[in-house]
């Protein structure tokens, strides 16, 4: 097992992406992790590292990377766009297929990353397996949760006249926990409806790991769980992307490893 850090140029966009590879001795699968965004990204890091190392020990190569304008990749957070994200994911999939000489890829997405994984698998036919950890499913609700958090933050810090919206170089931004997100991106998230995406899928394995019974109900109501390629699992893990990074995610790691075998 070896680890490698790479800064790779996304030629279509001409910027550099940060990549962390966990190289297995044999590539039984190659799995690309798709990150959540905002402060959820930082909170899943520990889990991703633990999982990557365990996966690579078991002959699954893992590719972790940061989308443009997030983490250690080029760009500032206000430059974040979904057009770039989609380009980055496609670029990393193509790179991984070439480098590891494989035809099919597994995508493991967390929160918004899970919804992006579904979106990508709608347009590509080389995605073998989707592992979706707490997908958002409903963009409007995700925004509502983030905005409620913002309200709570202001209240906790006794900020009575907060600035929630900004204008910068002719573009408008909304503040999400200190991350300035372009209005266009917010509108894109609002329109996110991944249930439709899962409903339309006819092949491939889809594993949804969630501890939300409401989410299970939502998927049941939409007849997604009747499909034989969708497995939903209620896991008794704490919401690690919403708590501190030190949260014990051993059980979740074990669960994902089981899904790969």
């Amino acid at each position, binding site marked *: 097992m070896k680890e490698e850090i790479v800064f790779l140029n996304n030629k279509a966009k001409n910027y550099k992406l940060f990549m962390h590879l966990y190289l297995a001795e044999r590539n039984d699968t190659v799995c690309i992790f798709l990150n959540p965004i905002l402060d959820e990204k930082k909170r899943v890091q520990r889990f991703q590292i633990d999982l990557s190392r365990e996966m690579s020990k078991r002959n699954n190569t893992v590719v972790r990377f940061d989308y443009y304008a997030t983490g250690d990749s080029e760009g500032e957070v206000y430059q974040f766009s979904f057009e770039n994200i989609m380009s980055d994911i496609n670029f990393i999939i193509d790179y991984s297929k070439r480098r590891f000489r494989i035809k099919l890829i597994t995508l493991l997405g967390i929160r918004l990353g899970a919804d992006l994984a579904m979106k990508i698998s709608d347009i590509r036919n080389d995605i073998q397996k989707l592992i979706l950890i707490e997908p958002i499913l409903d963009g409007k*609700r995700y925004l*509502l*949760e983030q905005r*409620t*958090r*913002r*309200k*709570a*933050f*202001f*209240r*906790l810090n006794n900020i*009575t006249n907060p600035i929630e919206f900004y204008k910068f170089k002719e573009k408008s931004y909304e503040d999400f*926990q200190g991350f300035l997100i372009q209005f266009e991106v917010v509108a894109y998230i609002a329109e996110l409806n991944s249930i439709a995406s899962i409903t339309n899928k006819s092949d491939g394995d889809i594993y949804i790991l969630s501890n939300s*019974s*409401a989410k299970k109900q939502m998927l049941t109501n939409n007849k997604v769980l009747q499909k034989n390629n969708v497995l939903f699992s209620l896991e008794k893990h*704490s*919401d690690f992307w*919403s*708590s*501190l990074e030190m*949260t014990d995610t051993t059980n979740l790691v074990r669960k994902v490893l089981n899904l790969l075998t």
Partner: protein
Amino acid sequence: MLIFKNKKEKIIFKEVCDAILEILNEERDIKIVLTPKTRVFSLGMNSMKFINLFLKLEHKLNIDLDLLVNKINLQKVETIQDLVKQLK
């Protein structure tokens, strides 16, 4: 201690306390007695724990999140009692 007058308020109080304790106990076991006068913002709650509280209340009280958000004016919440009054 203020006793809630009607049954609905008592139920909401119990659910709010249960939800807060569940959240506080996620990280470590905390022995704490919550009363209507307990100040919500003195419990070590951060914004993330607050949204988790809303999500738990959505489930426990069977109220949609958007309705819950509209009902609760956080600027006017100091104690658990304030929260219960707004939720009833």
